[in-house]
């Protein structure tokens, strides 16, 4: 495989220079025609945010506080060339902080040992059975979708892979799936906090990941980050980012996507066309479907905090505790139900489906030339307001794909069913009251199986309409076995099992965990509620 990322190191300095130059040029008209005022505004914004942030941190990072304070005092007296130089210098600092690295030797090492390593991690019981575990890993993580077409598209153009995001393990298992499916490696942005783990950080640093510091909210940093991602795509580096922005706290399938990075794919396409480079860019939605989520307990706790109070960055969750990761991995290997990574149908940067030969298709299936979307009277141009709407539409197409390509597993099914029954039993209670009061509630197995059968019929009909996908166990197994699978799965990892068996009943033990897994089906609430008696 000769992936563009293999050549990254050779072009890295050039990429950095291009990003810095375009960032600085782009800010010339930030506040209208007055370049001096534009530069002042951008630097003032950066200084304001950095001083606020650094004021609260200690150590090496805190030492930069004086530098920013000093700049804030000088901005008003600086000449335009001085401001430009300062902007360039700050951009250079940020790009160095962001930019990734790719080491072919580490990649070769990782791709040869990752399956073994993951296999071992996913089953710590007998390391001597390494090779057996490789096979087991492929059976525990099922890769679905038309990966051969995606592999062909990777040769014709540039892939932008956009997965759902539930866990910090996502980038690891997705990396494994790329190797397993013989897809090229991708560059991707990862939270800077993830690089703190020495082992994972080492691999991430050398396998094309770049650092995203989510604490930095000022326009200069955001622009550096966006342009870096855009320039990488323009230059043909296959890329990956999570359009949900952060892990789904509620367990719901992401529907409100961050459009900034998705917009950079369209900007990259436009820039390519303007330069006469007509290589296509393909968006590939992917769903990652876990029967158990490593950080489920922390994520749902965070979601249930008052809206707006939820932490954007969590650095003390289960992912940060090696014991929990190992325990989780070992348990996942013992599950009857596989984790599913499902590659959706690729689309162009406007959200149109693409054929196997790489051509964009109209809704009716005829071949179209997407460059037409950018042209007015035959001339291609960038139009930020127009392109923002195109990006919004592409985001909607990705969100739709997330729903259509989500694979519903028994834990999602039982979580939704039990929580919906609880809602029916106490319709006057709000969510928080429900979560406080339902622990210990008994659900008669006969009644539960009746509801489960009706909801399953609705789900099967929805699958036949192409609205979602079902794990084969939900589709085919006797309904009591589906429920049993879910009950056992919940009990295998979480500190407190979500449910347990009582006399001819299932008893709710942890409503929050049920709520979390059931939320995976919340997009179909209206449809499925008719199935609950």
């Amino acid at each position, binding site marked *: 495989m000769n992936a563009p990322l293999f050549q990254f190191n050779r072009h890295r300095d050039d990429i950095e220079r291009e990003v810095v130059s375009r960032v600085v040029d782009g800010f010339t008209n930030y506040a209208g025609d007055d370049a001096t005022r534009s530069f002042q505004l951008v630097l003032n914004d950066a200084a304001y945010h950095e001083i606020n942030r650094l004021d609260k941190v200690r150590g090496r990072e805190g030492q930069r506080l004086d530098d920013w304070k000093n700049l804030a005092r000088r901005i008003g007296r600086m000449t335009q060339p001085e401001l430009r130089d300062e902007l360039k210098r700050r951009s250079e600092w940020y790009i160095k902080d962001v930019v990734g690295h790719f080491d072919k030797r580490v990649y070769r090492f990782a791709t040869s040992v990752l399956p073994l390593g993951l296999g071992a991690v996913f089953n710590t019981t007998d390391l001597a059975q390494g090779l057996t575990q490789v096979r087991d890993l492929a059976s525990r993580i099922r890769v679905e979708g038309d990966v051969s077409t995606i592999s062909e598209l990777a040769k014709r153009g540039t892939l932008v892979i956009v997965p759902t995001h539930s866990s910090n393990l996502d980038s690891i298992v997705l990396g494994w799936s790329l190797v397993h499916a013989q897809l090229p490696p991708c560059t991707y942005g990862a939270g800077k906090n993830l690089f703190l783990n020495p082992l994972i950080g080492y691999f991430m640093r050398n396998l094309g990941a770049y650092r995203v510091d989510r604490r930095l909210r000022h326009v200069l940093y955001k622009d550096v980050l966006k342009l870096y991602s855009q320039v990488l795509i323009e230059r043909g580096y296959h890329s990956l980012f999570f359009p949900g922005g952060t892990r789904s706290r509620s367990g719901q399938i992401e529907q409100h996507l961050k459009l900034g990075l998705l917009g950079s794919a369209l900007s990259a396409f436009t820039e390519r066309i303007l330069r006469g480079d007509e290589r296509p860019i393909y968006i590939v939605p992917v769903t990652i479907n876990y029967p158990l989520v490593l950080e489920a307990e922390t994520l749902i706790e965070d979601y249930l905090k008052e809206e707006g109070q939820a932490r954007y960055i969590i650095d003390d969750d289960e992912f940060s505790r090696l014991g929990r990761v190992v325990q989780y991995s070992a348990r996942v290997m013992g599950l009857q139900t596989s984790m599913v990574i499902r590659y959706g149908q690729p689309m162009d940067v406007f959200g149109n489906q693409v054929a196997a030969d790489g051509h964009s298709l109209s*809704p009716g299936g005829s071949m179209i*030339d997407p460059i037409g979307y950018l042209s007015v*009277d035959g001339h291609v141009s960038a139009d930020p307001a127009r392109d923002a709407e195109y990006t919004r539409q592409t985001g909607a197409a990705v969100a739709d794909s997330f729903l259509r390509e989500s694979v519903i597993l028994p834990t999602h099914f039982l979580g939704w069913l039990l929580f919906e029954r609880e809602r029916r039993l106490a319709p006057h209670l709000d969510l928080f009251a429900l979560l406080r009061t339902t622990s210990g509630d008994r659900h008669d197995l006969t009644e539960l199986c009746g509801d489960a059968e009706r909801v399953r019929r609705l789900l099967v009909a929805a699958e036949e309409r192409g609205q979602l996908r079902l794990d084969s166990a939900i589709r085919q197994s006797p309904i009591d076995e589906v429920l049993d699978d879910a009950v056992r799965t919940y009990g295998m990892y979480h500190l407190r099992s979500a449910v347990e068996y009582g006399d001819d009943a299932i008893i709710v033990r942890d409503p929050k965990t049920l709520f979390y897994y059931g939320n995976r089906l919340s997009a179909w609430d209206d449809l499925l509620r008719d199935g609950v008696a």
Partner: protein
Amino acid sequence: MTAWGIIGDGKWGLGLARRLHRNGHTVSVGGLVSRRKGIPKGIIHTTDIRGLLESHERLIIALPIGEVETLLQKSEVSLGPQQRVMSTARGLTPTTHLRSTEAIRALTAVRQLAVLAGAADARSLSDKSPVALVVGSAFPSWSAEIQNALWSNSLRIYTNQDIAGVELSNVAASVVGVALGVARAMNVGPAAEATALTRALAEMNRVVSGLGGQVGTAYGLAGLGVLGEMVYGGQGPSFLAGSSLAAGGYRAGEFAEVRESSRTLSARVVRQRIHAPLVEAVEAMFAGKLTAKAALAGLMERPVGSETELLIKS
């Protein structure tokens, strides 16, 4: 100056053609039958619909809503990414219950879509009466282009980025307007008419936001503007349909467009569980399941809630 293609040589199509032509644009109008009569000088008329569609980047579809899908489903018609389309069709499609631009989006590769709506009728477009319309489009450059192309001292064109809201307001106004016509014909008095108008607006807001538009768009030209025209003028198809229902019924073939709007909108609000008692009452009256008197009594007996509550789902 630019070239515009208009599909539909009815009153709307020709009214818009005149306005564009007066502003210096080249206009071609397509119709099913070759005709010369009524075609203003300087405007090209053709029956080659396919040729017209393929040769124009700026297109106006000025067809009744029932014909939009039929036109685009024809295998020989293919619209491409470079094209920009404005629709004047009101209502929802007969079988799929889609807005006109939703149908165009579902059947073609066109993305830059717009809709023209408001209180003006086709006659006021032609006779230079002072009038204002709203162009709804999520693409600011396309709506600005339409605004500039049509604007004159007798036609003000406002823009609104909420294209779904503009289309839905227009269809919702044409349906709840029937209820206002019923109220006037039943001589309920100004206070009760004002109540009906207020509740009609609240319902329009629910329908619009529940079906994908934004809260508040119903207060614009496509919603309140259309209701205002009915109430001030005491006429318009919806208002007159209401009068007929209050008087005991309508003749076969009468108010076909309003009845179709009522049928399709009520089907969509029921399917999506939108709380819309006026829309449902109007449809029940058209379907002969409810008399005007019983509809009024039913609406008055419903449980009453907060005036400001935006209860979308029933």
